[in-house]
């Protein structure tokens, strides 16, 4: 079975500053990795995913993440955040059992 740990439960950040959200996973098999975003009172939508190939993946809204197999990490970054990036961010992992397992989420609050 796989599990996901998001190391930061809350990340306050000023507008136009960079942000990094940390995610570590544990799995005995190869996995597929995802970051989802949940805006207030909405469902989740996919930001980006790593399936194979280049370890640096780019997503929507200027986000990117880097897969590090040796450190079993998949950290999410954005060089300059906007007020509209205030949301809940979920890291997720899926192995061959077809289940998508989510981390506990990181609340990002962007302040002017």
């Amino acid at each position, binding site marked *: 079975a796989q599990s996901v740990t998001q190391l930061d439960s809350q990340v306050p950040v000023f507008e136009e500053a960079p942000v990094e959200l940390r995610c570590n996973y544990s799995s005995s098999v190869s996995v597929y990795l995802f970051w989802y975003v949940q805006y207030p009172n909405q*469902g989740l939508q996919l930001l980006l*995913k790593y399936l194979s190939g280049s370890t640096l993946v780019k997503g929507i809204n200027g986000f990117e993440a880097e897969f590090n197999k040796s450190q079993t990490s998949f950290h999410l970054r954005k060089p300059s955040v906007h007020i509209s990036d205030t949301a809940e961010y979920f890291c997720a992992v*899926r192995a061959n059992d077809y289940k998508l*397992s*989510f981390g506990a*989420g990181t609340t990002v609050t962007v302040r002017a």
Partner: protein
Amino acid sequence: DTAVSQTPKYLVTQMGNDKSIKCEQNLGHDTMYWYKQDSKKFLKIMFSYNNKELIINETVPNRFSPKSPDKAHLNLHINSLELGDSAVYFCASSHWTVNTGELFFGEGSRLTVL
């Protein structure tokens, strides 16, 4: 057009009642899911159906019964509601393939049990 739609969006009911949440997707996907998000925003899968067949059935009380009349619909019926059932329930859909895993979520149904 909403890709994954759930009804109702809000549901307030008394303990012991029975209620249902409906979900429909128009994305042509063959797999649908129910997730429960608790007050701490933790998301946990409950059920998944592929082509109307139950493929994931996590440790969920028997009071919860999913039904998939066709590939585009997955409903959730809950009997004898308890206070602990209060949560946001998300429906999601996807293609049945290992190489993607991208799920498309509805906006959630917030259930409050009094």
